[in-house]
């Protein structure tokens, strides 16, 4: 008879879950140079990332966080906070969820969603630093583009649906109701579907 198997998570993830790194102590964010918050409690996950930045070199010297989230949210943000230290703001901004997942030794598909919030919050913190320091021109907007005019579905909605498990156009429609009225957006939506599948799942 076999003994209990491991969790659905890698050892690396388990390690970061058991002893998360760089959790922000207390409640005061004033001492940090940039603060980013994403998600909300009703959806089951929320993430806050705070950073300290060396003004001359724009290098991140400290990164701390808090989360309301599951094991993968905790572990992926813990590892992200390690990854960004010593990186420039620009380098840190371009860390992708996939790199975080790789660093953890992989994530189950249905958990990718939980790890995306961490780097979203990091990007929000970086933008917040730029705004605070009068560098509004550097703020990188992640402007949503409307793909389905009828149902007002954006590329962000498509990405979210992919993260929640949509793999085919039909599943995308089930998740978002996209293309259920005039259907003119089908081609563009399919291209984006493939793109996000590739970005997040290497498919």
């Amino acid at each position, binding site marked *: 008879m076999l003994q209990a198997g491991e969790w659905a998570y890698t050892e690396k993830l388990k390690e970061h879950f058991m002893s998360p790194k760089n959790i922000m102590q207390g*409640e005061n964010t004033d001492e940090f140079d940039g603060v980013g918050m994403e998600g909300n409690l009703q959806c089951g996950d929320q*993430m806050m990332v705070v950073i300290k930045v060396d003004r001359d070199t724009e290098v991140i010297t400290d990164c701390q966080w808090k989360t309301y989230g*599951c094991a993968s949210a*905790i572990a992926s943000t813990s590892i992200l906070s390690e990854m960004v230290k010593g990186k420039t703001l620009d380098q840190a901004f371009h860390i992708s969820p996939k790199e975080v997942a790789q660093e953890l030794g992989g994530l189950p598909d249905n958990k990718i*969603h939980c790890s995306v919030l961490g780097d979203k919050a990091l990007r929000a913190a970086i933008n917040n630093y730029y705004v605070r320091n009068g560098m509004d021109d550097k703020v990188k907007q992640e402007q949503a583009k409307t793909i389905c005019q009828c149902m007002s579905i954006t590329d962000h909605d498509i990405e979210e649906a992919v993260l929640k498990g949509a793999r085919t156009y039909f599943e995308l429609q089930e998740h978002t109701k996209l293309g259920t009225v005039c259907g003119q957006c089908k081609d563009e939506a399919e291209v984006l579907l493939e793109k996000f599948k590739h970005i997040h799942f290497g498919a």
Partner: protein
Amino acid sequence: MKVYFDNNATTPLHPEVKKELIEAMGMFGNPSSMHAWGREARANVEDARSRVAGFIGAHDDEIVFVGSGSEANNTVLSLFVCASNQCIPGTKMRSSIITTKIEHPCVLETSECLAHRGARVKYLNVDRYGKVDLDQLAGMLGDDVGLVSVMMANNEIGTLQDIATISKMVHECGALMHTDAVQAVGKIPVDVAALGVDFLTISAHKIYGPKGVGALYVKKGIPYCPFIRGGHQERGRRAGTENTLGILGLGKAVEMRQLEMEAEEKRLASMKAILKKGIEERIDDIYFNGHPTDSLSGTLNVSFPGAEGEAILLYLDLEGIAVSTGSACASGSLDPSHVLLATGVDAERAHGSIRISLGRESTMQEVEYMLDILPKTIKRIRDMSTAYIKGGTHAASR
């Protein structure tokens, strides 16, 4: 310390059931065979049938052995969508089904499927304790209704329904009544005549019997059609060679429950009261879900706002404690427990809930260990939670 507080998910075999199964392990005959091997198996299957029937006040020939509670529930619901005019005399014109929003997925998903196949399905609301809205039921009942299916005890929050009253209302309108009693049989007294039900679902592994076996009570004279066809087993009501060892185990499990249930359930109720009081005293900002009194004696469902369920479950697992959660993250979907949402609990409370379900092997030492570990676990998670930062939802309550 190893603490198994997930007895609503499944239970360990009762030692007596285990003993009986080990002794019977050599029994391999097919109960349908006329020779000695077959007759041995037949005798044991029929003995188990009598025990199960006796335990719920039914006749032996009203018990159909099946592969699981889910199969029993699928069987009953599927009776009511049939294209044939021959199959279900008397109910063939009545294709509406009423069930509740807090049923087990095997009822909800089957209902959805039947709706796609032409049935009209209506879902009853529950109040904040998980009790079915009887006024709403009265309004829904009509000539078109063929079946009403209401679970007797809820697996997540433990709330008990007044099945006898519901049965009476259902029969007055000429429909049939089913109750999924998987969490009830063997935990509270169940008598089919007193309840007045036409169908009732039982599962073995929730009451210290083996997995992969259950029973469906079908009242004598009620129209019936097999869900699994192609064999004369179970008087033509469920094809497939009988799971003889499983059935034997179910029979023994029921016998042991008959002996132990009353005292055992009292013991669980007092342990739950201590657990509840301890949690209340040691952890701030908590909510108990389910009915405060009309509930399974071993089931305690509690929400810890600001702490996410899967994280609670896994940190407890690291300490050797097993519980389950209504959190979406642990289940693979992104929606939290449909049961908690149906009781009006907001999504955050549903995401941050755990279910503690005690069983016959649970001890006071385990309850004390839980009361030691749980507050530390919740504190640890809340300390890293955004819900408690300045301006956060729960910042003021700390």
